[in-house]
């Protein structure tokens, strides 16, 4: 695979000890008076596939927004490769880190290719709105998402699964070392959910760091190399899916009694809820 120059630099520096990756330091986040996330520390190394899970309202999406520089912390800071994310120019950050939010709006009459091309914005300037890498980056993003033959189709005409792939193509065209995904599989049928997660797992194997907020614990355990479990604005468990995902934890965090059994195919943990006793 032909990586961009930026990415080659990123990977070459991967094993230097200067805090490469994303790091949250004593992060307090919120929208109004009451904080949603309080005093949170988290370190994500390059090359990881981290799934953030937790009950509704636990602050996982809020955390992702702060990691992606979209939400300003009330206190604390986020470091990208050792430097405060707020002290860097926004386009500079956007060349290293991409965020796919939960419900992006599809602009009127946009084609799949134009949508993917918007991911190139941080690589452009006012007078140079086309960089030599654009053609390769957009073409590659469309190939990887399987949309190459739908490139000139309006996004509005795509099915839900293809539409989500088109958004994925946009952040792939951005060619960042780190990709943040906020519940990318919501509203997709089960086949398209696995399809999309396989795509991100594949990107992870090719060297990208992936951080995803996911709802489905089995999917999180199957695809991620590390689970971060949040509850009420704090990290309550952090480790490999095998270590973290226990019946006790699911009961404590989600209030659900269950058995945890190994997946017969991948031997990653599967959650089997108990029937409710009346």
């Amino acid at each position, binding site marked *: 695979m032909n990586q961009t120059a930026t990415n080659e630099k990123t990977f070459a520096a991967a094993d230097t000890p200067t805090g490469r990756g994303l790091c949250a330091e004593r992060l307090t986040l919120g929208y109004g008076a009451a904080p949603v996330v309080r005093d949170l520390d988290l370190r994500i190394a390059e090359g990881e596939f981290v799934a953030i899970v937790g009950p509704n309202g636990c602050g996982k999406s809020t955390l992702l927004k702060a990691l*992606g520089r*979209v939400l300003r912390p009330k206190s604390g800071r986020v470091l990208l490769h050792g430097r405060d994310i707020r002290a860097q*120019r*926004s386009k500079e950050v956007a060349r290293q880190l991409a965020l796919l939010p939960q419900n992006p709006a599809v*602009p009127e*009459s946009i084609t799949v290719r*134009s949508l993917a091309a918007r991911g190139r*914005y941080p690589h452009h300037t006012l007078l140079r709105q086309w960089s030599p890498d*654009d053609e390769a980056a957009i073409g590659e993003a469309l190939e990887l998402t399987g949309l190459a*033959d739908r490139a000139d189709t309006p996004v509005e005409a795509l099915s839900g699964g293809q539409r989500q792939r088109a958004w994925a193509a946009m952040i792939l065209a951005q060619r960042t070392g780190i990709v943040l995904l906020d519940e990318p599989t919501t509203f997709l049928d089960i086949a398209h959910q696995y399809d999309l997660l396989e795509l991100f797992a594949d990107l992870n194997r090719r060297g990208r760091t992936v951080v995803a907020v996911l709802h489905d614990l089995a999917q999180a355990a199957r695809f991620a190399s590390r689970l971060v479990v949040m509850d009420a604005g704090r990290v309550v468990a952090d480790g490999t899916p095998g270590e973290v995902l226990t019946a006790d934890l699911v009961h404590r965090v989600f209030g659900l009694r269950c058995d945890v059994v190994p997946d017969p195919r991948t031997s990653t943990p599967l959650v089997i809820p108990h029937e409710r006793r009346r």
Partner: protein
Amino acid sequence: MRSARPPMLRVGSAVALPLHPRSLLWTLLLLAALLAAAAATLCLGRLGVPLPELAGALTGDASPAQTFVLNRLRGPRLVVALGTGAALGLAGALFQSVTRNPLGSPDVIGLNWGAGAGAALAALALPGVVPVPLGALLGAAAAVLLVTAATGTGLRHPGRLIVAGIGVAAMAAAFTQFVVSALARDQASVLAAYVNGTLSARSWEHALTIWLVVALTTPLLAALARPVALNEMGDELADSLGASAARTRTSAITLSVVLSAAAVSVAGPIAFVSLTAPQIARRLTRASGPNLVVSALVGALVLTLADLAVQHFPFADGLPVGIATLAVGGVYLGFLLVREWRRGVL
């Protein structure tokens, strides 16, 4: 697979701007149509300069009567129509894009009527104290702030935006009528100018005002076109791509207010050019984003044609052009309301 490289405007290695082929084609066609409409404006009717003599008359070889028509009657009127139409088209394209809403147009949400009220107040109640364009600007800004405050959700929710806009427009129109009837009771034409918008009896001073504003805002518009397009995908995505959504929105709304106020200060609150021009432009180009250039050209063409129509309308001599755009645009607004309601947007 077809190549991903679009046609490109290049200047050495410093400038590379991708061009959208359909937009380019329509830009050329609209320029040709504008030329034809301009020639028709100068040539038609009893006072018109006959087409074969037009080129000569424009290059200095004109009879005194022709000079009067070109210099005093139709020349300034045409130039004001072109600039005002372009300004209204641009203001509408920016505002509709930023509100992510085809109904979020300056003339639907009361901005133009606020500017009209400000202009009327400046011209009639405080003549010589407050320049008319400044009055229009303050009126437009006040209208936007009122609408933003009245919705309770800023400029996000289309339905609330329209309801608040109708209220603000009605108040502004009532205020305008009050000022005009208190201070210029005898002049129906003055009332028409401030309530509906008209292009009759325009001077070169008006032409200079509107074109100066269009020229000064053009570089800012060029810089804003791409961030505005990114904003259409939602604030979070625009922010994460490195284009600050809040700053883009503030700049775009400010520019839209300035352009609308300039248009209103030279021609009154002409309705529905801002609403229709960007949407006609979108249908022509089928391009995403705010379509600024084509919206400006469509706005100029719509207003020039509407003014041409009222100048030669058989039964109503001196009909204000604003009444024509109101009548035609009102039908379109109705159609749009029904469509958006069916789509569940409202």
